[in-house]
């Protein structure tokens, strides 16, 4: 795939959040959260449930409006960036109705809707984009299958393919490692490296510390605000993790939180 992104400059900022505050009916969910992510980086967003992780995610996707602060994607407002198909969202496996009557092909084609006219009639270029995306996640043979008949790992790959077909420059992934098998995890590792090479920026929301260490160049630790932010090796200290997980730290070396989750899946 030839990325046709606007800027290939190394220091071009894909995600800029400046002192973002979000509150729901007076309750503060997030305050003073700032983050700058340049093109070609993979960043983990780590925090406990209820720490404002998903709120930050929603703010970046434009689903909640910050009460203060501003967010820019590729230098423009979030809703503008969405109209330009710059932001792709890969949902948690749990957030999807898998008995919905759609095939793998249909799901990946949904990534092209934003680039189509109002009737959403696929053109040849859309079909090529879908074939290409399915090839990259190794699902082309299963394209006619109902989405519900796939395994957890295959489902995750189908939604990654949708993001690829969309040709977005910013990818937001919600708990991408939950419920995936080993082949899918390998494939995701390769894909993420390719994405980074191509100048994509990937933000991964997760509580899975092991995978953050393996996959992410940068880490953002969240507990109602950005506690620490920087290169993974520098930020992943037991002191920082202590602050993030409020005194009940998961062991940063063996990462019990993540291994337990992994077994559960």
């Amino acid at each position, binding site marked *: 795939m030839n990325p046709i992104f606007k800027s290939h400059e190394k220091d071009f900022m894909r995600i800029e959040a400046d002192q973002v505050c979000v509150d729901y009916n007076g309750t503060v969910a997030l305050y003073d959260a700032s983050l700058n992510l340049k093109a070609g980086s993979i960043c983990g967003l780590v925090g406990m449930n209820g720490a404002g992780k998903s709120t930050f995610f929603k703010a970046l996707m434009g689903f909640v409006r910050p009460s203060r602060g501003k967010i820019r994607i590729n230098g423009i407002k979030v809703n503008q960036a969405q109209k330009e*198909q710059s932001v*792709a969202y890969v949902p948690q496996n749990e957030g999807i109705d898998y008995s919905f009557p759609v095939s793998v092909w249909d799901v990946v084609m949904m990534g092209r809707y934003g680039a189509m006219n109002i009737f*959403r009639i696929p053109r040849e270029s859309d079909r090529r984009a879908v074939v290409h995306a399915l090839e990259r996640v190794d699902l082309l043979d299963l394209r006619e299958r109902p989405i*519900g*008949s796939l395994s957890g790992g295959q489902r995750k790959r189908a939604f990654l393919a949708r993001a690829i077909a969309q040709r977005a420059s910013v990818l937001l992934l919600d708990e991408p490692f939950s419920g995936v098998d080993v082949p899918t995890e390998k494939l995701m590792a390769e894909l993420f490296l390719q994405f980074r090479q191509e100048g994509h920026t990937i933000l991964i929301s997760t509580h899975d510390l092991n995978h953050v260490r393996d996959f992410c160049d940068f880490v953002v630790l969240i507990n109602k605000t950005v506690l620490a932010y920087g290169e993974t090796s520098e930020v992943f200290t037991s002191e920082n993790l202590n602050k993030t997980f409020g005194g009940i730290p998961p062991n940063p070396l063996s990462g019990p939180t993540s291994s337990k989750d992994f077994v559960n899946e």
Partner: protein
Amino acid sequence: MSEFLISITPIDWLLDPLTHDFMRRALMVSALVGGVCGLLSCYMTLKGWALMGDAVSHAVMPGVVVAYALGLPFSLGAFVFGVGSVALIGFVKQKSRIKEDTVIGLVFTGFFALGLVLVSKIKSNIDLMQILFGSPLGISRSDVNQTLIISFIVISILLIFRKDLMLYCFDAKHARSIGINTGILHYLLLTLLSLSAVVGLQTVGIILVVAMLITPGATAYLLTDRFDQMTLLAVISSSFSSVLGVYISYWSDIETGGSIVLVQTLIFLIAFLFAPRYGIFKNQSLIKND
């Protein structure tokens, strides 16, 4: 009567009603209304809006009564109250701690009760039974015109926004993240629901119209894994049951709305038992081959 039934041939059974003007009208309207409601029912079942369908269809009652009393097209009154009930449900839910299903139940029964009170108080020639149970056999020419116009609007919008609405039902977050205005889609779907309830109540009445808005979709959902096939199957089964229901009602002199919905329910039961992949007695070889 029963001797007469035995003596007629199937051809007569089909053709005899067509010699009457009112039956031709009833059959045409029922087939059309069945198709419209069947198409929408796919979105209702996939989105999980069965209760919403029930609510809106009951809430249109006072609108119908007021419109009749003022001499306005009754679809207008029904539409205003249908959309109004939805807005009220949203408002109460947002401003209180009460859960949504409770709010829905509360609002629609309140509206329905208001309708009943209005019928008994407003002096007019409104036939309560006609509103509650529908009467396709007695449908007037102006009602036919209204039904045609509303059906055309609903079908057109559903065809144009078919993919967007499907995406909205499947993954609203993705829809939003690619710049689709899901707020508009939400209210569009609710508007279509109100309009369909309005046409549906002509044939089966307010009480049973929710069946028209969910049963065909549920039946089709058991038969296929393709969205396009699902809509097609829902439309066919819904139109077919409406027409068959009217025929049965004509020949055996039973209540038409009940007859239509009963046929629909029987078709659902058959799918529930014998659907190749998702029925109780499913074809095991089909599953294994997968």
